[in-house]
């Protein structure tokens, strides 16, 4: 369980996040949605100690994030930010091996190698293992980074816009993999997503942010409601029932 209490981070011009309290359930997929500048990425970075908080507290599985040992945290929670601007020339295999760094400090044991192999298989990267990541397409590269996070083998996985750079097919594949991680391995996954329909199709609960505050938090059913969506996005979004699933038609 992730417990966020009274969390604030201020940037210039009223940006940042203000007094957020939130409980994220263990063993579930939770998506953050909301307009640009709502503070979704900031919240994700604060939860995962990438940036220091101004006020408040974050507890992950009972440990206070701002006080816990960073190395120990790296075995409990992993975070992947948007990775498209990385231009380091590493092979896919080498990148995934770095996921074991918190466990092994660079000297990989047999168990570490097993985790690496497993992660590569899970993301279907066997054939690309020896390629440099700067030779891959955006989608392949994204999968390589997710494989690294899988090798890190943490109970909590935070992903900032994991569908960026992915085409439709790979987006669906990615979401299915994430869903499987929760269903089969019991991982707790928190995502920042732009597409509400993807969020609705694969999440257990959805958190809506706007102007640095959590304005709604509920099950997919509660959130996929024209009144709620209007409140979040300031436009009328009709919700239709297609084969028992709620789908937003926000195109016109």
């Amino acid at each position, binding site marked *: 369980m992730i417990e966020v209490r009274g969390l604030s981070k201020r940037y210039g011009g009223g940006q940042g996040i203000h007094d957020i309290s939130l409980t994220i359930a263990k063993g579930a997929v939770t998506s953050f949605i909301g307009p640009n500048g709502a503070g979704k990425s900031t919240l994700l970075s604060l939860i995962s100690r990438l940036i220091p908080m101004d006020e408040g507290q974050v507890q992950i599985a009972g440990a206070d994030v701002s006080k816990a040992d960073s190395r120990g945290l790296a075995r409990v929670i992993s975070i992947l930010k948007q990775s498209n601007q990385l231009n380091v020339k590493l092979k896919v295999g080498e990148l995934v091996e770095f996921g074991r760094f918190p466990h092994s400090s*660079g000297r990989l044991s047999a168990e570490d190698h097993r985790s690496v192999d497993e992660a590569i298989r899970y993301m279907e990267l066997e054939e690309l293992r020896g390629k440099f990541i700067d030779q891959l397409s955006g989608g392949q590269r994204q999968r390589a980074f997710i494989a690294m996070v899988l090798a890190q083998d943490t109970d909590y996985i935070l992903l900032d816009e994991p569908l960026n750079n992915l085409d439709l097919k790979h987006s669906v594949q990615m979401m299915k993999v994430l869903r499987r991680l929760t269903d089969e391995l019991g991982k707790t996954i928190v995502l920042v997503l732009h597409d509400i329909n993807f969020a609705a199709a694969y999440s257990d609960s959805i958190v809506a942010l706007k102007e640095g505050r959590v304005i709604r938090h509920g099950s997919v059913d509660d959130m996929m409601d024209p009144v709620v969506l209007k409140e979040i996005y300031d436009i009328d979004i009709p919700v239709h029932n297609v084969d028992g699933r709620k789908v937003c038609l926000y195109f016109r």
Partner: protein
Amino acid sequence: MKLRYLFPVLLILSFTSLFVGVSDIRPWELFQLTEDQAEIMRISRIPRLISIIIAGVGMSVIGLIMQQLTRNKFVSPTTAGTTDSASLGVLMAMIIIPGASPLVKIVIAFAFAMAGTLVMIRIMERLRYRDPILVALVGLMFGSIVGSATTFLALKYNLMQSVGSWLNGDFSSILKGRYEMLYISIPLILLAYLFADRFTIAGMGESFAVNLGLNYRQVMRIGLAIVALVSAVILLTVGSLPFLGLIIPNLVSLYKGDHLRSSLAHTALLGAIFVLGCDILGRIVIYPFEVPIGLVVGVLGSGIFLYLLLRRRAAHD
């Protein structure tokens, strides 16, 4: 390219280097040297060979570390203010403590190099435009500003000649008793090897590093301290060797990638080979005179650097 090809090349060049010079010593005389010849070997040729290898390895390795930590392939100690700051430090030591021992000079040069590098990194972090070449240019400007302060002070205190001597790398003045400080860089290079994985991770950026539980700030500080200290030591013994820290890591990255654990040894060996080759060339090109190593490395290095720049351009278009 494999390490097992680089090693023999280094050995052959090292051997050649011992027998190039004004005094004739033939390879077949190696086991029956006259007293004079043995003396030349001991006092001049062997110290020269050792200092070339250490300086070549040192400059290339710290260039690699600096590029990794700044995440910029066009940054190096000689082009982003580290060496310039170190030489300002040496000058200050000469002005403030006349007759300072070499060790004192190194400590002060190191302090200046470290401070200069940290300021440079701060400036780079604040730049709005992150184009690598532009960032590298800013580094070049920063280095020139520090350099002009050095020139100004040197003129004022009539020390221009000494400054000139260490600004241009030169192995011809290396003699027994005047190069041993270079040995300080050996444990530092070994330390760099131990930190190879951490430097690679830090090179992926702060959030990537923190995610893996790495103490990013500490790794940065250790890396930059290695860069600053090795720069200071080499500056004070051999002098400035431009371009080396820029081109060798870039050449190795082309075929070996950026995983320091696998590229560090290649960078070190290729650096030593390049400097040895340049030194031998400088010694025979206008024999019996010598072209200073700084000049040879500069000419060949800038050519290779241009090639790397154009190649990058071609890859982008």
